[in-house]
């Protein structure tokens, strides 16, 4: 349990940075090399290596060097993919439905006003 929570701490500390969250999101789509990630996030190779290092220590990402290319992929200790996916999905609909609330309220007001005429 202690091990588990310290891993979670490391995971969430690693994810407190927007770029690193972006890297995780990117790797959901597929593996990528450090240089691809650096380019994608408009960073230097050194900067991206640091970010990937933090994610790697947290177990969120694993890397493998083949020849001159270091490839990054999501690690086994990553966020539960299904949970993350479902949460993302829920977030999309929640944002939509909050906006729909506003439209619904307006329609209700309009109905009440029309009813009074």
């Amino acid at each position, binding site marked *: 349990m202690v091990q588990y929570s310290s891993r979670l701490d490391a995971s969430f500390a690693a994810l407190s940075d927007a770029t690193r969250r972006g890297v995780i*999101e990117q790797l*959901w789509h597929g593996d990528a090399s450090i240089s691809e990630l650096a380019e994608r996030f408009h960073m230097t190779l050194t900067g991206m290596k640091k970010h990937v290092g933090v994610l790697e220590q947290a177990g969120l990402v694993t890397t493998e060097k083949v020849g001159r290319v270091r490839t990054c992929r999501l690690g086994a200790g990553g966020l539960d993919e299904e949970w993350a996916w479902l*949460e993302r999905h829920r*977030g999309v609909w*929640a*944002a939509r*439905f909050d*906006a729909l*609330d506003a439209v619904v309220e307006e329609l209700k007001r309009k109905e009440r006003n029309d009813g009074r005429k």
Partner: protein
Amino acid sequence: MVESSKHTTSAERRSDREVVVRRIFDAPVRIVWDAWTRAELFSRWWVPKSSGLKLQSFEQDVRVGGGYRVVFDLGDSKTAAFFGKYLEVQAPSRLSWTNEESEDGAITTITLEEKDGKTHLTLSELYASKEALDRNFGSTEGLPEQFGQLDALLPTLV
């Protein structure tokens, strides 16, 4: 925040190939139905500001076999289109449509049920297979919200 009356949205994976989202609205079903089926209303909420996306155009022909087309403006004169056709139209309680922009597109069905003047909305997205659902991981439509969700979760979990 004066949003105490706001209802929460829940999501669950009902099976290998189906995701279900639920939400309650403080209005009778006829109003919620209108908001889904009148283009001028629908286009006001389908792309919330928090998504960072801009709706370029929306057309719908709400009848069985009729089509819809949502076009997002991605900037730099790039666009992304989402389209399909309506499979079931049972006003004011059931609407079902295809998502044909990708081969893995789900069939989306909403059901609206009125209880005590409130609308209980259930939205199902049914994929052709587990693999099709899994491939939908790649959808970036909700990207900014997803980060928002993580941001919101971090303080409570750390």
